[in-house]
């Protein structure tokens, strides 16, 4: 890939981030969101049972689901970048944009001392309203598109701290110079 191609591709980064979306469902299955890699919420569906959790829980549910959807979109963007630019460019982007969320973000912060959002009761009455979306979407695939990847990149090999010794010992006249 030539320098010009890489520059053109880098300029497309913004467009990739704004265009790529990710969809995630909250682990409790009470909310589903689609967001761009820049965190813009494109769609949001709340399960009717979610509202029974109370206003605070609904707020947290939306925040957590939006973050999961954004993380999915960022991961998809990285995958798309790596495909179109090559691994070296994707790593350069990663160097100043941060690692992909798969390597850094905890799934959902469960350590905070707040009441958990409890999953809905499984059985549904006949005729009860389901998802609030206008049309039922196809179920999201169980495995995300990056599931086959290695979970962690191996740590880069450390650079030798001092390389001057090599030059010194390569000089046959070492020690005879002043």
């Amino acid at each position: 890939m030539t320098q010009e191609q890489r520059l053109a591709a880098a300029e497309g980064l913004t467009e990739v981030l704004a265009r790529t979306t990710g969809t995630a469902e909250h682990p409790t299955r009470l909310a589903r969101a689609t967001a761009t890699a820049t965190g813009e919420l494109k769609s949001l569906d709340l399960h009717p049972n979610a509202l029974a959790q109370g206003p605070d829980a609904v707020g947290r549910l939306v925040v957590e689901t939006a973050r999961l959807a954004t993380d999915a979109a960022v991961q998809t963007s990285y995958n798309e970048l790596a495909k179109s630019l090559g691994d070296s460019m994707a790593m350069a982007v990663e160097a100043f944009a941060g690692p992909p969320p798969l390597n850094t973000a905890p799934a959902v912060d469960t350590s905070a001392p707040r009441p958990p959002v409890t999953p809905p009761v499984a059985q549904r009455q006949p005729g009860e309203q389901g998802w609030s979306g206008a049309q039922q979407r196809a179920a999201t695939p169980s495995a995300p598109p990056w599931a086959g990847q290695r979970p962690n990149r191996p740590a880069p090999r450390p650079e030798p701290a001092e390389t001057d010794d090599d030059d010194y010992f390569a000089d046959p006249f070492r020690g005879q110079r002043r």
Partner: protein
Amino acid sequence: MDETERAARRVADTERQVSEHVARTGPVLGRASSPDGAVTVVAVPGGPPQEVRISPAALNMGPRALADEILRVSARAARDAASRMHRTLERVADPAAVRALTEIGFERGPDDDDFDGSYLRSSR
């Protein structure tokens, strides 16, 4: 040093300047609320909503209407966050960095908005 490294260095320099500024002034946050106060969203620039507050009465809207209202308010909070980041960057970064901010999708909105800068200074 190739073009990518130079770009990364410029990003790092700008990031340092902004970080130092933000360390003094607090994080750049945007906020928006429904006219009736049903939904309030706090957002950071370029990220998903950080906080979504819903009034107890808003639960009566039903899931579809509430979700739509959250979407609308989130979009406004994101625009507010982008505007505030512009105003923050204008104080510390060079004009090229501020222009770049617009190019990557952070529009500078009008100075006078619903909260006219009081949010960051108000105690919460």
